[in-house]
């Protein structure tokens, strides 16, 4: 079967909305209800965070959601149990995002096999370097038809972006500014970088993430790329939600109307 991420981008090249949520947050068993609501109300892609004790690339909001999820009892084993059978109802592509240590400890091949079994399409591991991926893990990910999605930043050289583009599958994750997640930086300052990315005519679609929080920032990002990723703003929205479905509906309609 063709990877669902590729299917998505074959159909839709503009305004792709990817929403991030930490698994097991705000409550342990909210993972599936959140995913269901995201699909229902128009998210094109779902990025599920695998909580980690030491999320180096994340700002306070996503860190806290991770801590909370771990306190709720979330683990990779529990996550895979929750995800068993989710493909009966959820058809949008789903990506797991998390740090390399839990994956390494789970066993990289066991992890990939489990992802394929439950129906995961892609993986984002920000602290897995390109060289290690290429020499040690690429064949395993490809064997299970999992797309590894790499990050590029405003500081990434053109040569390196091209190399990353050649190793990435699915799409490229363009970090809007050199920062941890959830930093409020002015998107207008980033336009030269977005222009530069666009002019490179990369082989993968590009989604812009970090600092996308509302309709205005989503539209700006979408003007330069195939769409955008929202994380921190969504975590804030559902943190104290009494009614997940309603909260997700309100949140997404505020972005794509």
């Amino acid at each position: 079967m063709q990877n669902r991420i590729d299917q998505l981008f074959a159909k839709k090249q503009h305004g792709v909305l990817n929403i991030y949520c930490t698994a097991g947050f705000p409550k342990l068993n909210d993972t599936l209800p959140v995913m269901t609501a995201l699909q229902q109300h128009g998210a094109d892609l779902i990025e599920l965070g695998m909580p980690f004790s030491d999320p180096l690339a994340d700002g306070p909001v996503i860190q806290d959601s991770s801590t909370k999820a771990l306190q709720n009892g979330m683990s990779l084993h529990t996550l895979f149990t929750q995800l068993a059978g989710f493909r009966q109802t959820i058809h949008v592509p789903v990506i797991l995002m998390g740090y390399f240590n839990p994956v390494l400890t789970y066993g990289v091949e066991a992890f990939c096999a489990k992802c394929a079994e439950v129906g995961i399409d892609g993986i984002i591991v920000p602290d897995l370097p390109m060289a290690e991926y290429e020499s040690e893990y690429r064949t395993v990910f490809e064997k299970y038809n999992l797309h590894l999605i790499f990050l590029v930043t405003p500081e990434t050289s053109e040569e390196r972006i091209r190399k990353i583009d050649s190793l990435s599958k699915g799409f490229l994750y363009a970090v809007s500014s050199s920062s941890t997640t959830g930093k409020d930086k002015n998107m207008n300052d980033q336009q030269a970088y977005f222009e530069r990315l666009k002019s490179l005519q990369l082989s993968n679609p590009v989604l812009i993430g970090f600092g996308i929080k509302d309709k205005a920032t989503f539209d700006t990002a979408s003007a330069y790329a195939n769409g955008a990723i929202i994380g921190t703003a969504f975590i804030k929205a559902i943190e104290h939600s009494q009614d997940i479905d309603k909260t997700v509906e309100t949140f997404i309609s505020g972005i794509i109307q």
Partner: protein
Amino acid sequence: MDIAINTGNSRYQVDKNGYYGRFGGAYIPEMLYPNVHELQTKYLDILSDPSFQQEFEALLKDYVGRPSPLYFAKRLSEKYKAKIYLKREDLNHTGAHKVNNTIGQILLAKRLGKTRIIAETGAGQHGVATATVCALMGLECVVYMGSIDIERQAPNVARMKMLGATVVPATSGSKTLKDATNEAIRDWINNPVDTHYILGTAAGPHPYPDMVARFQSVISEEIKKQLLEKTGSAHPDYVVACIGGGSNAAGAFFHYLDEEEVKLVAVEAGGKGVHSGFSAATTQLGTIGIIHASKTLLMQTSDGQIVEPHSISAGLDYPGIGPMHAHLYESGRAQFLDATDEEALAAGYELSLLEGIIPAMESAHALAKLKDLPLNTDDVVVVCLSGRGDKDLDTYIRNMKK
């Protein structure tokens, strides 16, 4: 003094990809790539530049007070029936070995054109050593420290402030050294251009473990010369050092790594006992994984979550060890022992009474294992006395037998 430059083909030194055996590397997010890559490509050239070496040596001599003495501890030797020498890093300016590394890194930061310095600290020794060199060079200094450690180590917090540093509490996770390190790394991600991160131990992404080990290698370089002068041989039977992340041990072992007749002993913090649930004995309790961007041994749950260690000494309270030490452990080149809180306290009181030297709690862990080594009367033992105990007086006083 020379910063060790030639790795030659040692089995124990870093390889060209930044690994020691299967440990090491740089597991960094892309946002850190420019900073870390810049260091990786430039550090060896900078360190081997004669003018850099000159500046480094001059500061170590006139500012830090090196060479630090190698002191024959007569009464301690009588007690343990061996020839015991103490490498007196406690006599350095700021009171520990940490300053060897911060002097080196601040000179490096200046050559890289950086104007802002960040650091993590546990006990506050590395924070003080960083704040000190920033004052010396007139650079802005921000030190991350776990909010729990800020309470435990008030005098060092005051010192850093007096030296002009900003101390930022790390309130995430377990609020100690590991989290302070996370916060420093996050700061670096957010300040990719003007900031240098002075990491305080032989851990973190390549090239830090190697760079820190080289700056600290002055310890074993001096030991060799001093021991030769005093005993006619540069080779002791044992070199003993405590190990948090592993910088004083790396420095004390460095020039002996390939001289296999010298036994290397690393002492980890056993806490309340290795299997008590309150320990920091990483080689016994740890498994391979990634901590602070290095593939090494670390303490973690079966789900890959990093756990909070325990030690009476804030400087050893770290859930990992540097990759060089993970490799020394796995290859059997160094022997890893652990000393409990109790044993370390007892060794601290003992050195005070026998030699008139109050050691840092960290260094007391190394001393605590003298009783467990199979020593002969002719054996020459060098213990790295990594720091002085001023910062630990509260702990010593609180635990004195009534």
